[in-house]
């Protein structure tokens, strides 16, 4: 029986001494894969094309602009039979040397070379959908009546559409996928409207290349470290191709107007 007591004592001692240290710092580095990072988008009304070109750094380092900035990349945009050089302008931004007129339906091809990495992407400015009608809609959410406008559109191009008040604050929010051509879609204004008079409400329609869709769906990925208790572990999806490169490059079309000009005749 004495042996049993000694054994129990040993077990108790071991238990008490083992309760700490379940979370510990690992004296090891994670594998590092350097990537060329591209971020660029431009609209029909742009006079310049600008692209952010950076690199990724080891995951346990703190990324700052000075650490990730690349100043010696060779960046060009090809369209029709023309080539435009993009020159480093400061921080991570490269801007086209000359002004240009962006055209819808034209393919713009980006090529970035840095060290042994080559990044290539293409985009086409889609043609704007046609607005067929606009209707006022009242909906009830969380006990309150809210007003918005529903646009009926028809498009000959695929893309992602967002219709918002001109002063819409959120850039990458409220887009709707248009993945079938020559089909009517109903698109709600991206935010509720509080002004009663449609004559005072203007809107902006933004219609982006459909390549925007995978990025839009995954744009919040990669925010956390992917630990077991987070929803991480996934990368954003871009449309820039090449070994060890990641990025987005797409163009968009825009159009502005007043709600009142399109409102259903019976509502006027």
């Amino acid at each position: 029986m004495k042996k049993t007591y000694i054994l129990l004592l040993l077990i108790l001692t071991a238990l008490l001494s083992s309760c700490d240290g379940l979370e510990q710092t690992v004296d090891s580095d994670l594998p590092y894969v350097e990537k060329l990072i591209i971020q660029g988008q431009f609209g029909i009304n742009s006079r310049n094309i600008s692209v952010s070109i950076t690199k990724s750094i080891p995951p346990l380092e703190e990324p700052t602009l000075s650490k990730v900035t690349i100043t010696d990349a060779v960046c060009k945009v090809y369209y029709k039979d023309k080539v435009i050089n993009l020159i480093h302008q400061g921080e991570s931004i490269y801007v086209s040397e000359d002004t240009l007129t962006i055209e819808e339906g034209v393919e713009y091809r980006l090529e970035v070379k840095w060290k042994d990495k080559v990044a290539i992407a293409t985009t086409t400015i889609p043609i704007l959908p046609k607005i067929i009608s606009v209707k006022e809609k009242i909906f009830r959410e969380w006990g309150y009546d809210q007003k918005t406008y529903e646009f009926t559109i028809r498009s000959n191009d695929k893309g992602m559409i967002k219709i918002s008040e001109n002063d819409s604050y959120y850039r990458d929010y409220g887009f709707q996928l248009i993945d079938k051509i020559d089909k009517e879609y109903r698109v709600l204004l991206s935010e509720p409207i509080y002004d009663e008079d449609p004559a005072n409400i203007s809107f902006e329609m933004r219609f982006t290349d459909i390549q925007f869709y995978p990025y839009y769906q995954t744009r919040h990925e990669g925010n956390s470290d992917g630990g077991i208790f987070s929803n991480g572990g996934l990368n954003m999806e871009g449309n820039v191709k090449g070994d060890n490169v990641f990025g987005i490059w797409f163009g968009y079309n825009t159009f502005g107007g007043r709600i009142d000009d399109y409102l259903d005749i019976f509502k006027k």
Partner: protein
Amino acid sequence: MRYRLLLLFILFPLSLISEDKYSISGIVNDDTSKEAVISATVALYTDSIINKDNFVKGAYSNKFGFYSLPNITNGTYFLAVSSVGYKLMLLKIIVTNDDVRRNVQLESTSAMTEEVTVTADRESSPTSSISSISISPSFVSKMPAFGGEVDIFRTLQLLPGIAAGSELSSGLYVRGGSPDQNLILLDGVTVYNPSHLAGFISSFNNDAIKDIRMIKGAFPAEYGGRLSSVLDLTMKEGRKDKLGGKAGVSLISSKLTLEGPINENSSFMISGRRFYFDLLLGLITNDAPTYYFYDFNAKANYKLSENDVLYVSGYFARDVFGVNENDNDDISVNWGNSTANMRWMHIVSPELFTNFSLVYTDYIFDSNIGEDDVVFNSGSRIRDIVLKGDAQYLAYDDHVIKTGADITWHNFKSKANFNNLDFDIGSNNLGESIINTFDIALYAQDEWKVTDRLDVNYGLRGYYFQQGNYLDIEPRLSATYLTDAGIRLKGAFAVANQYIHLVVRNNISLPTDLWFPSTENILPSRSYQGVLGAEMNIIDDTYLISLEGYYKKMNNLLEYRDDAEFTLGKVLEEQFTSGEGRAYGVELFLNKKIGNVTGWVGYTLAWTKRQFADLNNGKEFYTRHDRRHDVSLTLNYEFNDTWELGMAWVYGTGQAYTMPTSTYIWRDDFNYNDEKYQFSERNGVRLPAYHRMDLNFMYKFEAYKLPWVLSINIYNVYDRRNPFAWYINNEYDPNTGDTSKKLKQITLFPIIPTLGLSFEF
């Protein structure tokens, strides 16, 4: 002409039995408890001196203890009946112009040298030893157990070819398959969610189980409906001699099993278990969430006649979780399985054995999340009603023919509802979704002893699944050949389909994981698997050494898409993506079967891969449970009548894990520079290797005239800090005022000693 042929086909088997040939049949029971002895060896000799020259023929008892030796001529014979853990019984049999019915009662032996714990070749034909292992519940009870909670699944995880998903999970990842690909049968009834505590503890109470048989792949035609493996558990029937039982307490739960006779023709067994950590926690604080589980097994049998026995069994398990932060906010989640089975065993003749079952299963998950009077209620439920019949035809010397059919009605229900909420937009997307469907399965297989050395098991299983109108035929073939050197060469091939899929969001088994049937858009999963191997008994049959290689190809596996949306109104089917899987490897198993030291060494070299067009950019990736090397060592040592030791040591290649491989700056929605991580390919990084040793010291003593066992379990004896997860943490240094990133490791369990106490009566 057609009818004559049909008649000839029907009568052909009978023609083999000439008029002067008879059968010897009966049921093998334990002499004390009177429970059926499964897989007892029954051999007929012409002399009481047993040797090869006197051997006439042999058979094995089935799951009901029934055996049959057909085509015996008049004469005097000696019937030798033996089974692991029992003394050899020799009976004189005289056959005179009639069939002989002879039930056999085997006397159990307490001699240590006779104890056999794990057998790879126990079942009724050599072919069924392929990829098949049986473990006795008594061996499971001696293995170290976390928190003193004896767990069948955690013991099975120690076998080669069966991996644990993580330290947190008792799920069985068999030869690269996921846990839902295991057909888990309790008395022939499918159990959908066989775990408590988010997969941490299996929901089967070892005290209620009589027999555990695991088939790791290429299973025969009598099993189906799952891709990878079969775990066939048989509940105790209840001893027929006297009232008895077993009770035990551990750190986290208590359990009680009672069994005994009802009258001379019937007996019962009931067993219950309750997790009471919540009660202990309640003594310390009132703020902790409520969590507990319980399960309940019951079985009764009634002997209607010498040829008819009726069994009624049930199983009920529930997990209950609740949070009541204040009087307004409530969360309650509960889930569990219920099964009921009524089975009728009927011996039509010495040559024809049948059993029929009517089964009801119910798996339910229900959650209520509420604030004030507004409650969001969601859940899912699967209810099955099964009617099945199986027959064994034993009229041939060299054939055991098994056939059967079952029809299952499935009712799948999922719901998502608010109550007391004025909520207009999208309200038509809320509500209930109900799918009613049925499937029919038919099978036939022949265990054919081609020669003394060559055994073949061939069969077909046919399926019809109404939802999607799928009709599939699954061929199954296995063969063994015994060489002069005593090496048994073995090979098997099987095709299997699965029509009900478990779609999970991560590797922790949660009740929110969804069982979903095949539909017109979701094709049935299908596996093709092949096994080649060899085994032999060595050193006076004390050891069994087995080597098996396998290859398994799986099609139409389901996963959630990376961008799956779990909002109301989204069509669930559209959130899935389908892909393929491949698993291959080699398993080495050295099993010491007899002696005061028993146990095994297992080694697995394996690869497990998946490929989905919508995941990992369409590239093939390793699963989280892929283990290149997996070693297990188990040991049971009986020092003396008082002390016994159970030991398990495991080593596994580190888990495949997705981790950041770089970080960068990205302009976010608000035009701010945001830090982002670029991750490795899916599961592209390996955590450090996992290894651990557990011990269970058992001290046996007598008190109140009852045998007691004090179990001293030590989990993770050498306090290995095994990695459960890695993550990156921003740490603040108070001395410099700087923050810096550190790679952190979470370990779940340090050394954990626990005590358990049990007694039998």
